[in-house]
């Protein structure tokens, strides 16, 4: 039966999964827009402004989705998880407060100027507003990742009468997993945006919108992906090692290892069985898990059976969801590596007559369709990654300090069920509308509507020549 705890967890998961989709786009897209803006400022080439003009619309839409779904998050603490703030509020509170004060207002105010101020403010102020919006989204990432990392690797506090009190803010902010998580998330955002831009640009190209702006967006995004994916794999590996040190139970669940062993295999497939405490249908590469986690072929990896209390209750997360989310994330990452490198190679190939590079003209149709298929691959990998780390922390809410169960509010289950259904319905509709509108905007831009950039004639951008839309 669905009880309040499980329903509240599902509701929180639904809210935060829906929410994270949009910051994942806006964090990196803000910087990409700034890049387009600066390239235009320097070169005066309209293709950069065309790319800016198209992607700023998607940015605005994503930002609005992120803001409104984020407001929901700040209420969830009180409506469903009051225990969280009662026990660790002295730590979480200031971190959240700093996020609101140093990030939310910055983004929200300068977004208005960035979106609607192009012809009202001088060029430097518009570029500056674009920078501050991008900076704001990154600051917001920083603070929320600090809090989240602290929940995984808490330090710098003492418990007095069951309530956490801060003793060392430096230790709290720079807790052991924070740097890995922060860069892992930033890179995830950049990869998500790379594949979003590549996918939508490929789509525009395929339906005939072969403008210079589309070319430049496709090229930028493919190179960005090809450069960043190896970095992400490297950072991900470091993050894994960090997790092994601080949350060995999570790593055991990720790898599906029940008994502590040396030379543990990397399981490509397995059906973890919680009851029997073993895997069925294992397919694995011998020794590889040990090699990845300890960088030695016969290194020791702790198994899940080490994390069972004397009375038999499991002190590790449910294995199957963690095991599978981890595989989905890694699998998507490998696909990203393959596709972005293939794309980069094709981009760089020379023309037969030696007149420069072939670029997108040299790409087979099937590859472009592949890019369209990968449009939202970043979302998949990001969500799978978050599920791995968050489900992997269970049954703890703050590792070793408080369990999820201790935080839940005493709201009647039917009440939570009703609100959950309402949220899910709204989210499903909005997600459909969001994806639909992105491709609608792409089609409209490709049909020649609102694609001609309106270029400022005078340098201060106050007096404008506006060709008809």
């Amino acid at each position, binding site marked *: 039966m669905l009880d309040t705890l499980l329903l509240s967890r599902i509701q929180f998961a639904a809210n935060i999964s829906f929410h994270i989709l949009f910051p994942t786009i806006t964090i990196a897209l803000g910087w990409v827009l700034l890049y387009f803006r600066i390239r235009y400022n320097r070169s005066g080439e309209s293709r950069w402004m065309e790319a800016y003009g198209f992607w700023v*619309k998607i940015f*605005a*839409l994503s*930002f*609005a*989705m992120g*803001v*409104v*779904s984020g*407001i*929901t998050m*700040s*209420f969830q*603490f*009180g*409506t469903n998880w*009051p*225990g969280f*703030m*009662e026990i660790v*509020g*002295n*730590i979480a*509170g*200031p971190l*959240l*407060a*700093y996020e*609101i*004060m*140093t990030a*939310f*207002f*910055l983004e*929200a*105010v*300068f977004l*208005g*100027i960035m*979106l*609607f*101020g*192009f*012809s*009202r403010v001088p060029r430097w102020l518009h570029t500056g507003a674009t920078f501050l919006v991008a900076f704001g989204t990154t600051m917001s990432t920083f603070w929320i990742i600090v809090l989240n990392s602290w929940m995984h690797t808490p330090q710098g506090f003492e418990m007095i009468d069951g*309530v956490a*009190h*801060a003793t060392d803010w430096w230790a709290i902010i720079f807790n052991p997993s924070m740097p890995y998580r922060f860069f892992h998330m930033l890179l995830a955002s950049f990869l998500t945006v790379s594949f979003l831009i590549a996918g939508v640009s490929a789509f525009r190209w395929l339906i005939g919108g072969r403008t210079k702006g589309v070319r430049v967006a496709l090229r930028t995004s493919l190179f960005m992906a090809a450069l960043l994916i190896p970095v992400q794999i490297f950072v991900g590996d470091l993050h894994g090692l960090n997790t092994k040190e601080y949350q060995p139970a999570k790593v055991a669940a990720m790898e599906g290892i029940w008994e502590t062993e040396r030379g543990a295999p990397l399981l490509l497939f397995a059906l973890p069985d919680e009851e029997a405490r073993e895997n069925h249908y294992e397919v694995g590469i011998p020794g590889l898990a040990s090699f990845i986690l300890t960088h030695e072929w016969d290194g020791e990896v702790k198994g899940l059976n080490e994390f069972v209390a004397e009375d038999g209750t499991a002190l590790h997360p449910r294995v199957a969801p963690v095991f599978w989310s981890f595989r989905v994330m890694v699998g998507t990452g490998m696909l990203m590596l393959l596709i972005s490198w293939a794309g980069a190679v094709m981009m760089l190939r020379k023309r037969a007559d030696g007149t420069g590079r072939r670029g997108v003209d040299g790409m087979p149709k099937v590859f472009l369709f592949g890019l369209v298929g990968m449009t939202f691959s970043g979302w998949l990998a990001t969500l799978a990654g978050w599920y791995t780390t968050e489900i992997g922390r269970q049954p703890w809410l703050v590792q070793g300090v408080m369990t999820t169960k201790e935080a839940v*509010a*005493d*709201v009647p289950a039917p*009440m939570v069920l009703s*609100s959950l259904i309402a*949220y899910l319905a*709204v989210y499903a509709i*909005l997600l459909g509308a969001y994806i*639909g509108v992105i491709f*609608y*905007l792409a089609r409209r831009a490709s049909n020649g509507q609102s694609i001609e950039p*309106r270029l400022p004639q005078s340098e201060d951008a106050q007096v404008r020549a506006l060709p008809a839309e």
Partner: protein
Amino acid sequence: MYTFGDPTQWLPFVFAGLMGVSILVYVILDGFDLGVGVLFPLANEEEKDAMIATIGPFWDANETWLVLAIGLMLVAFPTAHGEILTALYAPVVIMLIGLILRGVAFEFRVKAPAAYKRLWNNAFFTGSLMTSLSQGFMLGLYVMGLDWTLGHVAFAMLTAVFLTVGYSFIGATWMIHKNSDALQLKAVKWARGGIWGLILGVGAVSLATPFVSARIFDKWFSFPQMLWLAPLPIVSALLIGWLWYMLRRMPFRHDRWNWLPFVAATLLWTMAYGGMAYSFYPYVVPEKITIYEAASAPESLFIILVGTLFVLPAIVGYTLLSYWIFRGKARELRYD
């Protein structure tokens, strides 16, 4: 021993003040843009775009004040945050869904295919209405002490309607300032109609509050407090009379004083709100938990306060910059 006295005394007070100011700024700023949303169905298609143009660059930052207010409550008074929000579970969910609908409708109504524009316009109105009604409901229930009895719910339903009409009033006064010609005339008309909501809303809360608890009654109706407090209702009544008089004659020649109704409405709200704050102090959960009992540890509050002292002036500064850049009559919203 302490430089500024006992921090367990003054820190909660300072944070209650900060939270109070955030809520006030929120109800004024998001009040006007929610109000514009509530008035949406009364306008024709072209006017709808002009109405959106008056709030487009601001709404997002306006809503951030709600996040700040609720965030301050969360971080400074965690027990109260839990107590209040679990008591108000249902209206909070309705408000959040309303906020989601109207927030995304801003974007979708101009970006989705034209055939869907009407749908998103409806979503914008519905979302604004849900948000306003649920906030009014929460206000009423809060005043009554957060108990779900029949009488309290009935009272909360009344305040839901009054606050919604009140928001539409302040929205109309904002439009008088930002719109012109026929739409401005309409806004004047709407403001004349909406002022009722304000009078009834402020009246209902002011009359009900003292009778909820003897403590609040004594705060208002004992000597000599009564003398000090007398200007509050008197000035409010005068302001309402003056607004009434002005709205009969607006718009003035050359569109002079078009900002006056908005400023007057803001003053009125501030005073009503100040009266409420006076009534409930020192309680944050009415008659149950005081701000001193609910406050977080002083060392945590202190580190937030240090940041606030630096950041808040900057926030105020660039918010003013934004209102200054988009000053004057609203122009068509475009990205280029």
